[in-house]
């Protein structure tokens, strides 16, 4: 009996052998941990992508804007410098020079400087035409980005000259910088996702540890370790659950130990009564011998009375002896005295000692040697055969054989109608009487219970059933080498 509630720190990773009690393990994919990880990663990716995307766009626009403004300014300066010395209307040579000056295209009417890449879009031509403003357009040509600034050239008083200039610059460096931005944003996002995974794992273990502890605690409780308690720390919902669990375990333990105490008290009472009765009964038994001798000399009712007293006293003595035997089993006082015995000879001795040798057919394997308590095996076999003779019909057969290298089997079969199904579960109960009309039967009602306890003490089993032919059959299985000795119920 354990002493009071103790807080147990459950050793980790020891539940392989407990799986059968633990039920299906939680799926890894749908577990709380994976769900937390997925949620964290999604949140971090979505928010990170939103922030990174917004700042990426902002940075890109600033970068491009800067380049474009500088380019427009440079173009304006170039045009100013060159156009001041220009002859108008410009001939082809003049157009070529102007185009070179702005590294782009110069147009007058349908005359144009030689410049091919990238093509100036028509929509830019239309937008520039007749407009008193510079016009900028970004184009993609052959996978390369360019910026084009278009100008309808005017003289200082603002009069259009008919000359248009399209200055071109590629955006290789800006494209590279912008791609770099995207790359670093991706790297940061990946880092954020990684961090989110770590955070999620941390959060998951924070939530899951109490759950796991609780699960283990419940497992231990289910296995009968009623002293299991969990450490309740914190004040969240899980801590409340742990507290409730501890209360439940304490109540369960108290109730079970009360029940055990009551049972032990009852058993002790029976043992005490049996012992108290034994001494006077021993004296009385000694007197019955005298009574038996005298009964022959008596006549009439006195002789009958004397014999009855003698018989009932012996029965009472038998009952008390059985009670004492049962009490030993109950309080763990029953011990095995093991020796190597020939089972066939033990069974034969049992039958001969009871005078049953003539009534019983035997089929014994004479070579079987086993290590067991001769007296107890005698008790078992005697009860089996006695029961068959008493309640079944002859012929009764005793069969002894080995079953594998570890086990021997003794079966006792009668030829009666067999045992009714409703009786079978109760056959080995104490004082169980299959036939209530015969309440005053010869047996004490403890014989089969004692036989069953003896079989158990050997580490074997005793089972009641019916033979295929219809008779009642008791089967005793004993290990050849008994390792279980003594033992509490």
């Amino acid at each position, binding site marked *: 009996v354990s002493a009071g509630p103790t807080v147990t720190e459950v050793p980790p990773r020891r539940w392989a052998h407990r799986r059968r009690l633990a039920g299906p393990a939680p799926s890894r994919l749908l577990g709380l941990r994976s769900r937390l990880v997925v949620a964290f990663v999604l949140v971090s990716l979505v928010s990170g992508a939103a922030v990174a*995307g917004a700042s990426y766009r902002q940075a890109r626009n600033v970068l491009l804007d800067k380049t474009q403004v500088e380019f427009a300014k440079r173009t304006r300066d170039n045009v100013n410098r060159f156009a001041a010395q220009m002859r108008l209307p410009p001939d082809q040579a003049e157009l070529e020079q102007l185009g070179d000056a702005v590294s782009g295209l110069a147009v007058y009417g349908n005359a144009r400087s030689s410049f091919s890449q990238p093509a100036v879009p028509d929509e830019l031509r239309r937008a520039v035409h007749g407009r008193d403003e510079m016009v900028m357009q970004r184009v993609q040509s052959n996978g390369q980005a360019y910026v084009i600034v278009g100008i309808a050239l005017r003289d200082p008083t603002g009069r*259009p000259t008919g000359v248009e200039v399209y200055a071109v610059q590629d955006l290789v460096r800006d494209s590279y910088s912008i791609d770099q931005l995207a790359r670093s944003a991706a790297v940061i996002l990946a880092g954020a996702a990684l961090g989110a995974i770590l955070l999620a794992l941390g959060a998951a273990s924070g939530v899951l540890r109490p759950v796991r502890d609780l699960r283990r605690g419940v497992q231990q409780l289910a296995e009968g370790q009623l002293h299991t308690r969990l450490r309740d720390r914190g004040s969240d919902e899980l801590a409340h659950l742990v507290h409730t669990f501890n209360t439940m375990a304490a109540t369960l333990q108290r109730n079970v130990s009360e029940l055990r105490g009551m049972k032990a008290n009852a058993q002790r009472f029976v043992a005490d009564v049996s012992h108290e009765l034994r001494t006077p009964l021993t004296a009385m038994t000694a007197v019955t011998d005298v009574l038996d001798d005298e009964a022959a000399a008596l006549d009439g009712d006195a002789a009958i009375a004397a014999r009855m007293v003698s018989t009932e006293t012996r029965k009472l003595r038998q009952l008390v002896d059985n009670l004492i035997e049962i009490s030993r089993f109950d309080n763990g006082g029953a011990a095995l005295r093991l020796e190597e015995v020939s089972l066939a000879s033990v069974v034969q001795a049992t039958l001969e000692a009871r005078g049953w040798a003539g009534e019983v057919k035997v089929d014994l394997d004479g070579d079987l040697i086993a290590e067991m308590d001769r007296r107890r095996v005698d008790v078992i076999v005697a009860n089996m055969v006695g029961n068959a003779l008493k309640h079944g019909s002859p012929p009764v057969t005793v069969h002894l054989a080995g079953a594998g290298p570890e086990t021997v089997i003794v079966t006792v079969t009668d030829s009666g109608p067999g045992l009714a199904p409703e009786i079978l579960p109760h056959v080995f109960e104490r004082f169980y009487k299959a036939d209530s009309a015969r309440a005053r039967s010869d047996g004490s009602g403890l014989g089969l219970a004692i036989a069953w306890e003896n079989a158990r003490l050997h580490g074997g089993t005793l089972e009641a059933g019916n033979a295929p032919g219809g008779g009642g059959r008791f089967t005793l299985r004993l290990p050849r080498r008994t390792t279980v000795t003594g033992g509490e119920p």
Partner: protein
Amino acid sequence: VKRLFAGVVVLLLGGCGVSATGPIPYGEPPHAAPNGLAVYFVYQGKLFPTVRSRPIAASAADAASAAPNPLDLLTAGPLEADTAAGVTTGLPAGLHLVSRRAGDDGPILFVSSESGAVDPNQLSELATAQIVCTALASTVFGTPVPHSIILQGKLASRGPLTCPLNHRNPAG
């Protein structure tokens, strides 16, 4: 959630790199061409303003006297460079244009021709616009420049006309 995630990814990848744009107005242009004389010609059937460089003069006085009259440049027709660029004129050949400063009826431009009298109302719209716009862009009527003129032939007149042409009172 998955759809949202995919949307974000698509948005991210789609928004990457340098995208093309439409034409965007981008500030003051350079007013840098040599301060020449504005003459209106025709390019692809439309009025096409050009600027003619002044001849390089030795002194300021020379510059003033040597400065050609834009109306003469107009009647002289496109130069070689213009013709090469597809620039033409809508004016009939041999046209004479003489300006008279503001009188009672406003500035008047006399139109005549070597081959005889010219009726300004018979001139094409394009030719009329060339004459009016070139005249109003010049200083032949002194300063300040008027905003409308009357074309006067020997027998008929047209106007007042503005640049671009007004069509409210086609006959005057």
